[in-house]
């Protein structure tokens, strides 16, 4: 087991190196000259050439890549072309916002998805089953940014219950411990901040969770339907166990592996969707930062955000793989 985890961790390095090389090549081969971009349209050819020399853009490409990797390993993603601030600093500032949103969404998706899926399977072909499967179809077909807009119009504009955008009311930020506002406000006992943070979190989390909730509900339903037909379920019922006990202890436990798999995969998909949700709700995370970086042609920002995002994605997938081994003792890795 430990050997397997170590092996998988070691395999992370070539993948991440490949990811970095990929991003580096794509951005360096096809984008416009960053030196020209930094100096603006009035720069002379000599000025641009001097800056290219200074930035090392005239070095051979492998030297540039080596330097690029060296910098990344030292946590340096360069400076933003627009704000001149270190990209690493900006990313670190925004990272907790994205993680908080993604975790809230996956928690919501898993809770609602599994519950709905189990009830649908137990009451197959009931009105509830029919309704929830139509809901799941809607969930996979609706663009999440549109759902986000609809939620804003309904709950924020029409009803006025929830804020339209942002992470927290201005000036309410809890003192910085972890960077997760919900957690920080609980830790510091700042209940006003907690209320504000949760109110801001609800709609983006619901919008982001919609697609994953649908997928998890479908998967839970079909897996549960298979498990429920097994002999041991009939045995459990025959020996007089209550229906609740049969469903939760005998059926759900055995259906858990594919469900956890799909939840893990969804966490990765959620990370992609977060770009859209953050844009709709002006959520100050990495996705919002990335999109503004692209629109401003700020390539160190794009580079840093994409690499960080892919790293999180790869590590998440690895963590899910390792989790299986704990959940299912039958799985042996060699």
């Amino acid at each position, binding site marked *: 087991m430990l050997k397997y985890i170590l092996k998988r961790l070691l395999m992370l390095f070539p993948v991440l190196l490949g990811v970095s090389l990929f991003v580096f090549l794509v951005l360096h081969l096809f984008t416009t000259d960053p030196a020209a971009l930094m100096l603006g349209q009035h720069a002379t050819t000599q000025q641009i050439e001097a800056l290219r020399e200074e930035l090392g853009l005239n070095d051979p490409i492998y030297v540039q890549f080596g330097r690029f990797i060296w910098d990344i390993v030292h946590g340096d993603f360069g400076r933003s072309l627009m704000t001149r601030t270190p990209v690493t600093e900006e990313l670190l500032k925004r990272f907790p916002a994205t993680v908080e949103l993604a975790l809230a969404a996956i928690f919501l998706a898993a809770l609602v998805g599994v519950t709905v899926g189990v009830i649908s399977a137990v009451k197959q072909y009931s009105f509830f089953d029919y309704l929830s499967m139509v809901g799941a*179809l809607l969930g996979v077909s609706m*663009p999440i940014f549109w759902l986000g807009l609809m939620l804003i119009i309904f709950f924020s504009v029409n009803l006025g219950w929830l804020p339209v955008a942002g992470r927290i009311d201005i000036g309410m930020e809890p003192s910085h411990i972890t960077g997760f506002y919900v957690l920080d406000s609980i830790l510091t006992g700042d209940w006003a901040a907690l209320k504000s943070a949760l109110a801001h979190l609800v709609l983006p989390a619901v919008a982001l969770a919609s697609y994953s909730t649908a997928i998890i509900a479908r998967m839970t339903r079909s897996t549960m339907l298979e498990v429920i037909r097994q002999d041991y379920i009939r045995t459990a019922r025959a020996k007089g166990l209550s229906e609740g006990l049969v469903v939760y202890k005998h059926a759900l436990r055995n259906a858990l592996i594919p469900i956890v798999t799909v939840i893990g995969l969804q966490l990765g998909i959620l990370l992609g969707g977060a770009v859209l949700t953050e844009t709709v709700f002006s959520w100050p995370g990495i996705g919002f930062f990335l999109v503004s*970086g*692209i629109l401003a042609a700020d390539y160190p920002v794009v580079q840093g955000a994409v690499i960080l995002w892919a790293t999180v994605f790869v590590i998440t997938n690895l963590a899910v793989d390792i989790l299986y081994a704990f959940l299912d003792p039958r799985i042996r890795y060699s």
Partner: protein
Amino acid sequence: MSQANVLTVPAAEAERYSFWGDFWRRLRRNRIALGSLVFLAGLAFVAVAAPLVAPYDPYYGEMPKALQSPSAAHWLGTDELGRDILSRIIFGAQVSLKVGFLAVGIAVTCGIVLGAVAGYYGRWIDNLIMRFMDIMLAFPSLLLAIAFMAVLGKGVENAIIAIAIVSIPEYARIVRGSVLSIKENDYVQAARAIGNPDHAIIFRHVLPNVMGPIIVRSTLGVSTAILEAAALGFLGLGVQPPYAEWGTMLGSGRAYIFNAPHLVYFPGVAITLTVMAFNLFGDGLRDALDPRLRR
């Protein structure tokens, strides 16, 4: 010759049990899939005949008429420049279907070639291609598409390319997996033994057996492509104004949610219905092609 006739099935019988005939019969029985197909055919017709069907010019706006709510004259209202929203949605169908089909077409073609080469030849070619695909799969696909748009620049052609590139690995994997199992079959060995060249074996004996899963996957892929194109448009990276595209309409309508929310209602409904139809039709295709997969 007369001896061979004894072994052949009578033509009528062969027709009745042909694979595609059977497939079509199963698909026809699936009312939801058939309904989706009819919807998509209608949508395709509207898209092609947009200049004839649309009540107004989608690009002509009258400022005094801006932000009008739905009315008898403008069924879905007017946008911030006084343009008819229904007409823009009708013209937007052209863009969405074009992006969906072209992106998937390119991705499937590249995916089939790469997957077939990797699976058929194996060894270092397989390793090279599949490791590269693994790297691409290390990114969430929308994120990768966004990154490509940053490099390629905005616009509908680039959106098609970006969406196509990010979906290649999925098809390459399906094809490679199928090719790996099919190439061991006796009839492929036989085809090789009588001296067929590699490309003939791949195209005539291997690929036809991979088409089932590819057709199903690509139908579902069109819905993903339409969603991704809308997302790029919404972020301001895809189709550029004034061209009508559903995602772009949502992106520009976003500023008016306080006083004219109808700007964002209808393009979203159009995306949802179209994506839903492709999803349902894809599910129907899967069930009809392989009844064992039916859940």
